[in-house]
């Protein structure tokens, strides 16, 4: 044994003889221990390693330990969490080996969730800002004062002047109640994170083949022969998904990563395709060019199941290898190789995330991914699909349950018919519901008068414009005067200085969250901000929908800590104060002040026919949770046991009422199984004919279908025409008369359709051309802030719009200005594995915070040398809109020359200032830093108002 002398306690990389190689950890370690950490370590007695502030949460000898089960709240994979609880205290975490999703595994975040139960930095009791100081108040005072103020605003400005910003952190039941609460208040100004994470996916995908969701599952990726990631960094954003992905790779699947950055996911790829940020459509069409050129498309599949591919061919013709390289910067052989791998290894899947969605042309991007997969015949197949990884743990559920300004739960729109449907489910008179809304018509998006009730509300990405814009230019009576930020990180939204101004203009801000959040400190308000401590999902129970549409049941691990309350209890208190609790909870039992979660689940079951949230009763969900070990970890099907034949969590659609025992649908649009066993066709959503062409499927149908061809969606009349009407029971007939598969509350139409092997929503072709969108055929358009002025002429953005989701929206008037001389660097953003979203929870958790102590900007050595900055130096990142952030430079080849990257999870700093003094005492996160979105710029998707955060311009200078 040869002993080697090490250089120092910090230098583990040198200890391994790695020379001066700098990795992200070394970079961060060198930045020194944060104050909080040093202080903690400093007071420890010699020989003790116990964390000083964790007193009372450590396991105790001789005390009985109980195991309880929940689901991680940090991403959409849905990892099972097992807690050890002693005397009501969460004292340990064990691996959940029985969960078919994570098989015991966690990422850094999941392995540290116990900290929620310690909650040293959490908001401990209701507080209000008065005279610029935080004052502790009681729950009753808080609810009374807040209620009085919003009622006053309602009287003066109407219900649309109160904004209800909900959360993907709600469980399904709370999400549903939140949307219902906004309806009872009388506004569509309600939204949540999905708007700024996958809204362009939901719109793009639903408009292509029916449903806006991940088609397959993480587990099904074991069956892939090829996997193409674009705008997804699974290794940091969905680490446990990588277990399934790497299993696929070991099974022989080829892995391709397309990204402007050489990500940690790219490090595991067989083929890395670097491209210029914001040119996804160009890249996809560049690949499709090779597919068409070589005749690699699946012609039979396209003929039977796809409409409009000829129009795509016309567009793709333009994307020769030369033009693709001119726009994307990717060499032709690299593009061709990616296309060839996908063509030669089928079935293959495509995975995309926010790198693809957060663009002014996000809806074009998502549709181009879909079209690519349709051309290869990859959709509706195990091992294929569009595996769209969602972000937050329940963003799929909160989207499904309609915490959105343009839909009701179950993607029912805002039309009178939709309101009637839900009023019926709620047991309320539709006229009463209508009476809650503003009654005066306003000018809608299309320039025609609309009722506020039927007019989509302001999306979360634009709430600041709802405050700042002159009401004359808006599609509602008055500006937004009060906001509930209920589980939302404002540092995830762009245009910081304007947001600060908007916050300071409002009468009232109510932050409902386990933490005070960046919103509490980033403005200079002196009065009228309330902080209400919400419990985490570990302190309550209910259902949660993972990315693959499986619904899992969480048990309560511990009682709410400090004075926090679960969201649904806070909603009840508020509804009582605002005077609609009776209608709100008409069919829901309320115990004390807590609405019964199971009753809420059952109400969801009774109304969500569109997407099959009807079969997953609380009883079935609990049965799955208890027997999760009986599910196959690849197919997700229970093999024996009490849930035999079901798919884990009954991935929606689980058709019909729970008694029908539909097993759930593991792979969407997969005709190789009968619908009753989880098979499906493409949804007939867009009519039966277009331009004289048949939109229904041809000679393609699911196994066991009695209709051996395409067919439209089922209605009562269609059952009669088919002679199947008498399959309904007399009771079903009564409810089904005049209804369709979405509105028949008996579920009889769905039951009978499935009995005959048919999909209730019809059997159609997927459409590659969405004629209702601004760009029916997805096309490339340059970002609003682009350094490629030569491409602006060829690929210009949209014209400005006068009214879009109630607001004027700018495109061309920004792009026409050339900022590239003063702001030459392209700037993109993304995730770090230790943090999530706005990062409040994780930056307050010492186990995670220690691993990422500084906000930074990744910059290529070429740019760093040109600007004259060194690794670890503080720099200013200046935005063309005048905002600036002060961050640490990290010099790395991970980014290309001319492109910089920042993570988006930091907060607690604003334009160079650490705001630590502005937090209520003891609640400041351990790690604070600039929110990159403070300096991210204007730009919104042309269909959904998704914000553009993946490509803008900046300049960097030494600080």
């Amino acid at each position, binding site marked *: 044994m040869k*002993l*080697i002398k*090490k250089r120092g*306690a910090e230098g583990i990389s040198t*200890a*391994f003889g790695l020379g001066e*190689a*700098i*990795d992200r*950890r070394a970079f961060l370690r060198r930045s020194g*221990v*944060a104050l909080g*950490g*040093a202080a*903690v*370590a*400093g007071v*420890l007695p*010699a*020989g003790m*390693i*116990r*964390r*000083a502030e964790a007193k009372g949460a450590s*396991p*105790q*000898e001789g005390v009985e330990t109980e195991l309880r089960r929940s689901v991680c709240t940090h991403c959409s994979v849905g990892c099972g969490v097992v807690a050890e609880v002693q005397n009501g205290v969460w004292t*340990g*975490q*064990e*691996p959940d*080996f029985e969960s078919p999703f994570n*098989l015991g*595994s*966690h990422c*850094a975040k*999941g*392995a*540290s969730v116990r900290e929620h139960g310690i909650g040293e930095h959490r908001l401990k009791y209701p507080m209000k800002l008065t005279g610029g100081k935080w004052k502790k108040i009681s729950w009753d005072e808080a609810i009374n004062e807040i209620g009085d103020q919003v009622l006053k605003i309602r009287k003066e400005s109407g219900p649309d002047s109160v904004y209800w910003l909900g959360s993907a952190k709600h469980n399904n039941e709370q999400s549903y109640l939140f949307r219902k609460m906004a309806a009872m208040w009388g506004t569509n100004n309600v939204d949540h994170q999905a708007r700024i994470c996958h809204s362009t996916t939901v719109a793009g995908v639903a408009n292509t083949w029916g449903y806006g969701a991940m088609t397959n599952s993480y587990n099904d990726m074991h069956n892939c022969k090829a996997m193409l990631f674009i705008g997804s960094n699974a*290794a*940091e954003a969905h*680490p*446990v998904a*990588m277990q399934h992905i790497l299993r696929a790779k*070991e099974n022989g699947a080829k892995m391709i990563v397309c990204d402007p950055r*050489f990500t*940690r*996911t790219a*490090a595991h790829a067989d083929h*890395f395709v670097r491209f210029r940020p914001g040119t996804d459509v160009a890249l996809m069409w560049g690949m499709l060019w090779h597919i068409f050129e070589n005749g690699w498309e699946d012609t039979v599949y396209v003929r039977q199941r796809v409409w409009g591919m000829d129009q795509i061919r016309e567009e793709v013709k333009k994307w020769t290898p030369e033009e693709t390289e001119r726009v994307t910067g990717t060499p032709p052989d690299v593009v061709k190789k990616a296309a060839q791998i996908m063509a030669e290894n089928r079935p293959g899947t495509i995975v995309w995330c926010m790198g693809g969605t957060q663009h002014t042309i996000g809806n074009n991007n998502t549709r181009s991914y879909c079209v690519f997969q349709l051309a290869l015949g990859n959709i509706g197949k195990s091992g294929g699909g569009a595996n769209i990884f969602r972000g937050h743990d329940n963003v799929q559920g909160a989207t499904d349950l309609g915490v959105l300004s343009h839909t009701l739960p179950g993607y029912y729109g805002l039309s009178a018919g939709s309101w009637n449907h839900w009023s019926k489910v709620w047991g309320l008179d539709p006229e009463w519901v209508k009476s809650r809304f503003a009654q005066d018509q306003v000018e809608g998006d299309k320039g025609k008068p609309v009722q506020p009730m039927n007019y989509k509300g302001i999306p979360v990405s634009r709430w600041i414009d709802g405050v700042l814009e002159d009401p004359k230019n808006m599609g509602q009576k008055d500006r937004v005067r009060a906001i509930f930020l209920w589980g939302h990180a404002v540092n995830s939204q762009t245009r910081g200085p304007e947001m600060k101004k908007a916050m300071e203009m409002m009468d009232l801000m109510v932050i409902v969250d386990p933490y005070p959040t960046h919103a509490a400190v980033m403005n200079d308000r002196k009065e009228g901000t309330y902080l209400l401590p919400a419990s985490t999902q570990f302190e309550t129970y209910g259902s949660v929908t993972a990315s693959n549409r499986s619904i899992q049941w969480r048990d309560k691990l511990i009682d709410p800590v400090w004075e926090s309350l679960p969201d649904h209890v806070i909603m009840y208190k508020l509804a009582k104060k605002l005077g609609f609790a009776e209608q709100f909870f008409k069919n829901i039992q309320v115990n004390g002040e807590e609405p019964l979660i199971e009753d809420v689940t059952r109400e969801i079951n009774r109304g969500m026919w569109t997407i099959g949230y009807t079969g997953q009763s609380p009883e079935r969900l609990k049965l799955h949770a208890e027997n999760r070990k009986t599910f196959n970890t690849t197919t997700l099907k229970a093999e024996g046991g009490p849930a035999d034949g079901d798919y884990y969590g009954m991935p929606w659609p689980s058709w019909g009422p729970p008694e029908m025992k539909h097993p759930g649908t593991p792979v969407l649009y997969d005709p190789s199984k009968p619908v009753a066993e989880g098979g499906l066709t493409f949804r007939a959503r867009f009519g039966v004919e277009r331009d004289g062409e048949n939109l229904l499927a041809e000679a393609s149908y699911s196994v066991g279908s009695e209709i051996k061809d395409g067919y439209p969606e089922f209605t009562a009349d269609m059952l009669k025409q088919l002679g199947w009407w008498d399959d309904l029971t007399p009771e079903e007939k009564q409810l089904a008369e005049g209804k369709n598969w979405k509105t028949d509350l008996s579920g009889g139409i769905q039951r009978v359709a499935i009995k005959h092997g048919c999909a209730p929503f019809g059997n159609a072709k997927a459409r590659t051309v969405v004629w209702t969108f601004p760009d029916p055929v997805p096309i490339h358009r340059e970002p609003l802030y682009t350094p490629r002025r030569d491409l602006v002429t060829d690929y210009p953005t949209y014209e400005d719009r006068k009214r879009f989701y109630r607001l004027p929206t700018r495109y061309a008037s920004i792009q026409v200005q050339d900022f590239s001389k003063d702001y030459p660097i392209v700037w993109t953003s993304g995730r770090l*594995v230790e943090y999530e979203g706005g990062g409040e929870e994780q930056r307050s958790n*010492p*186990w*995670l915070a*220690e*691993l990422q102590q500084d906000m930074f900007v*990744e910059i290529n050595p070429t740019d760093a040398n040109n600007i004259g900055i060194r690794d670890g130096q503080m720099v200013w990142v200046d935005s063309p809109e005048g905002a600036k952030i002060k961050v640490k430079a990290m010099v*790395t*080849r*991970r980014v290309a020359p001319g492109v910089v990257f920042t993570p988006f999870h930091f907060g607690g700093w604003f334009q160079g200032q650490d705001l630590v003094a502005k937090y209520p005492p003891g609640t400041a996160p351990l790690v604070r830093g600039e929110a990159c979105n403070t300096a991210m710029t204007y730009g919104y998707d042309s269909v959904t108002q998704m914000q553009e955060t993946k490509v803008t311009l900046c300049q960097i200078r030494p600080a």
Partner: protein
Amino acid sequence: MARMKFLCDAERCIECNSCVTACKNEHEVPWGVNRRRVVTLNDGVPGEKSISVACMHCTDAPCAAVCPVDCFYTTDDGIVLHDKDLCIGCGYCFYACPFGAPQYPQQSAFGVRGKMDKCTFCAGGPLADNSNKEYEKYGRNRIAEGKLPLCAEMCSTKALLAGDGDMIADIYRQRVLKRGGRPQTWGWESAYGASG
């Protein structure tokens, strides 16, 4: 008798740090002390690889060989533990360790060392199994409960394996066969000798 070992599969490690936070959580390891950490080579360029590193519980542990107060001992399972009541915080073990495992709580601005702390393979220390005292000084004793180290049990991609050396070698060998690649049992030679 089992011979406990760690093995980190660099083909699977994605640097997610679950091993690090699982360890922090399980043992309430204070800020600044890292019983386990993830090291990345070639960060940001093709060839990037990450490895999770902690005490490897070496067969012929160099830390034990240099310790002036002889505070180290090896359990029947081959786990290298130490007695904090004997440790004088001299730091020799840190110089001897090929893996940079020994950690010292930061006591003052001048870097005076406290008692050494390191990965215990979740096997506690010389005090009574899972007593409050053992927990305070060494963290949890999972081995006494018939469980394996939490870092490996919670590894996001099953890259980090912990357990009986023969069993984890079997698991790893199957993976290598499937991949058709050369085994990269990083650190095994220095920890467990040429025969592994």
